[in-house]
């Protein structure tokens, strides 16, 4: 499946872009409405971008009464990204979403770099959410931890059905003239191509640690980038920053993914799932040999 990364698309403003995906992931919803951080909230860096949006969202009440019914009419499966400041926040929102048929899955944003949260452990949040809903639960993890395999295993033990990898990591940009931070709050979350090798490593590590289904994301620009995430162990791929530059990216990446898979000898690109973990092709084996298998 091809999805968007949470916070990288508004399906109500750009419904056609959302419909080009296999599922739409909402911006993170919190218990109360949030305006988000003060501007400036985005800045381009050398090989990525920083954002400090700060979980701007209408809050769960307005989300459920106003946004969800309209999202349900889009004809695309809806995943709701859920955030909070303590474990109870996540549990409360999950139970509110539980009997809404429009919601296909819940992604637990346990790792937003833009909110100063008391760091409840990912596993505690997943466990609380698990008691509150029967919906499939995907835990979105940060790669900025000493051992992501440990976090992934704990999330699995707490009842996560899958993992979303990875969230942005903290970065800072200074104005070249004033040497002061460009972003209003100072630091922000780094996304884009700079994140891609980090995302690949996290996907490969968590695949080995848990074998849970994974939505891979981080810097995907084209079909080959998506294929690499699949090869590292991602079942699904989400598009993030590329959607800002190219609203036609869903259809383009999907087409490139088929081509990139076929060029490497895979009948369907899904067949490349986790091949990065197989033994390397023996010396002397060429791509052509592989294609003729």
């Amino acid at each position: 499946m091809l999805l968007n990364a949470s916070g990288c698309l508004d399906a109500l403003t750009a419904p056609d872009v959302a419909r080009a995906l296999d599922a739409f992931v909402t911006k993170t919803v919190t218990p109360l409405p949030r305006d988000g951080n003060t501007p400036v909230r985005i800045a381009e860096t050398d090989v990525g971008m920083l954002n400090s949006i700060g979980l701007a969202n209408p809050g769960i009440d307005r989300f459920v009464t106003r946004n969800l019914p309209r999202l349900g009419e889009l004809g695309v499966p809806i995943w709701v990204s859920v955030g909070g400041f303590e474990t109870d926040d996540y549990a409360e929102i999950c139970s509110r979403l539980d009997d809404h048929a429009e919601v296909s899955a819940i992604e637990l944003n346990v790792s937003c770099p833009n909110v100063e949260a008391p760091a409840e452990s990912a596993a505690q949040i997943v466990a609380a959410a698990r008691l509150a809903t029967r919906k499939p639960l995907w835990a979105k993890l940060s790669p900025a931890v000493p051992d992501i395999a440990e976090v992934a295993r704990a999330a699995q033990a707490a009842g996560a059905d899958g993992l979303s990898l990875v969230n942005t990591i903290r970065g800072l940009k200074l104005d070249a003239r004033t040497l002061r931070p460009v972003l209003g709050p100072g630091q922000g979350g780094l996304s884009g191509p700079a994140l891609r090798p980090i995302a690949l490593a996290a996907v490969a590590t968590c695949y080995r640690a848990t074998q849970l289904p994974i939505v891979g994301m981080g810097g995907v620009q084209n079909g080959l980038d998506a294929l690499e995430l699949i090869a590292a162990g991602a079942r699904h791929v989400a598009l993030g920053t590329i959607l800002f530059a190219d609203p036609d990216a869903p259809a383009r990446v999907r087409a490139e993914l088929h081509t990139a898979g076929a060029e490497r000898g895979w009948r369907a690109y899904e067949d490349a799932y986790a091949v990065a973990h197989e033994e390397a092709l023996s010396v002397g084996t060429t791509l052509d040999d592989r294609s003729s298998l």
Partner: protein
Amino acid sequence: MRRERLKVVAGEEVGPYTLVRIERGGLDPGAPGQFFMLEAPGRLLPRPMSLCLAPRGELAFLIDPIGPGTRALCAMEPGDHLQVLGPLGNGFRLELDRPLLVGGGIGVAPLPHLSEALKQPPAVLGFRSEWHAQAAELVPNAQTCVEPTLVTQLIPEGMDVLACGPEPMLEAVRAVAPDAQLAWEAPMACGYGACYGCAVEIDGELKRLCVEGPVLCAA
């Protein structure tokens, strides 16, 4: 909203600015005050630009080379290609009795297209230097001033003001013409409501300028 890969026709110097003319392809030029996202060669994110002129079969943008993205755009050669998305946002309201265009610096960019649509109403333009003021050539019926004179000193009473320029100028215009339509700027990553980077306070709430604006009513 449509995205196409289009060919650069020409880049013409206008004082410190460059008028980048691009083949129109299948894109609609939109209403004056609307903008396009232009791929900036070598950069990750596109850059928002107001449409300056819509010559037959072309789209033209007046660009101030202030940073890496705008410098790359100004350096494009005829025959180069770039991705263009648009038209985006909300433009100026045009049913007005006594329109007056007010522009400051690179804020003159959307005024030539607007002037055409309003049948060349009077305009007052302010610039930092005589060199910058060469951009006034693009706006018919314009009275020009150079710092330390400010455009706000040239605005007569009782006019329907349509303005674009730096934030301090827009604030000053708003003070003398409370009903003015003002074209604002904010850093934009996407231009179509996806990134929430362009949020500004509108009616006491943070709203996305690319969706609600960039032209807003002062009142």
